[in-house]
């Protein structure tokens, strides 16, 4: 069973990596948004260091919310969604696999490139580490929550900005805790990581079921 699910994740990832632009565009978007802030707010290193966690988190959030909208898009167009719905595996499990593959192909590159961007925004080494760890803990939550919205809007053509409006409020706790963790002093930080971990476990517990329920509704317009 684990073997099958790993294969499903592998095939999902192959499909994404096959078309380079699907995972490169969100990454490029992320980098460009981060680079806009020094241009808009001025190159003052003190200001940038203070704002860096917020900037990187907001940019990551926007990039993920854009890419997650396509989570079920191709499957729905190719009719593969029907096979997933008819599968003998629980739907929530398959949805979870799809979300993992989304995270691996769309979020992990963001996490990997983030130290470089932190460097551009004058973050210290210690804060760089905090940045990477919080992104590692936080981005799965963003993917999982986003998958609910993606499932709800999959059949709606020209849904445009509906998905961000729907899902953004759910991202607020992660955004708050994530950027606060980076700003916090080193001593008090372990509690913050615990909070991020709790968010991740909570979203893993609830999101796949809600996404499954949303897919079963089968909204088609």
């Amino acid at each position, binding site marked *: 069973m684990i073997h099958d699910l790993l294969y499903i994740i592998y095939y999902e990832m192959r499909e994404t990596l096959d078309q380079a632009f699907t995972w490169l565009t969100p990454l490029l978007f992320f980098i460009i948004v981060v680079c806009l802030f020094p241009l808009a707010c001025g190159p003052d290193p003190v200001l940038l260091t203070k704002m860096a966690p917020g900037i990187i988190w907001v940019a990551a959030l926007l990039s993920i919310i854009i890419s997650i909208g396509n989570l079920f898009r191709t499957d729905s167009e190719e009719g593969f969604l029907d096979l997933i719905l008819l599968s003998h595996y629980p739907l929530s499990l398959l949805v979870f696999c799809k979300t993992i593959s989304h995270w691996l192909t769309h979020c992990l590159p963001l996490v990997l490139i983030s130290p470089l961007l932190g460097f551009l925004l004058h973050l210290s080494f210690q804060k760089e580490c905090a940045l990477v760890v919080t992104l590692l803990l936080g981005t799965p939550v963003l993917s999982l929550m986003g998958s609910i919205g993606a499932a709800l809007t999959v059949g709606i053509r020209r849904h445009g900005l*509906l998905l961000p409006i729907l899902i953004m409020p*759910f991202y*607020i*706790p992660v955004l708050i805790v994530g950027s606060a963790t980076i700003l916090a002093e080193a001593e008090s930080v372990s509690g913050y990581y615990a909070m991020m971990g709790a*968010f991740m476990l909570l979203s893993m517990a609830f999101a796949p079921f*809600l996404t499954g329920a949303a897919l079963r*509704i089968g909204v088609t317009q």
Partner: protein
Amino acid sequence: MIFWMSQKFLSPKAFYTTTTHFLPWIITGVVLCLSYGLIAGLFIAPADYQQGDGFRIIYVHVPSAFTAMAIYFVMASSAILVLVWRIKIAAICMSSSAAIGASFTFLALITGSIWGKPMWGTWWVWDARLTSVLILLFLYLGFIALQSVIKETQHKDRAASVIALAGAINLPIIHYSVVWWNTLHQGATISKLDTPSIDPSMLYPLLSMIVGFMLFYLLILLLRMRNQILLREIKTEWVKEVLL
């Protein structure tokens, strides 16, 4: 049990005919509660020793904020009924509540912001309570946006209930993280909207206003639901009997 109940009380027809008798009573309740609350709150209750007469905004701010949250709670409960037991009335209740809830949330924001001007000196402060009400407004607007995009009724109800349920699970988390964020960034600010101990002469009008707001919500909700029921059940025999 649930099935029996849904047949007896929650069928659209039973709901429609029963609520007809309640409506006058609810209207009376709204008028009584609101008029007592307004008169007592605006003129009889003594001025606050700290805030002077400025605290009188409490009589519209707190009831509207309370009602806004209560409406989201009602929506989330109906969402469970829709998803698990497919109760039609719950779906109608949920979709009719959203706009009312959004309007009360908006009102809570406006009055909170007006109250903030004499208290803090600015129209807007990123205070924990105001911020979480703002996020509640976003949740309502997202819900309404999703509803307005989907045409087919059954899909609309179930999609909306998924998002309402997800919102209800998230709302406490959002609230506490906003409170935490607030203490983190501006620990010195004491929330002046807190009223730790309150004199009965100030409290009773407030409670009366809260009840009045809730009854008003109930009234609007029932009226909207009755319209919805008639439109959704347009083809059935009982609608014809009731209306002709």
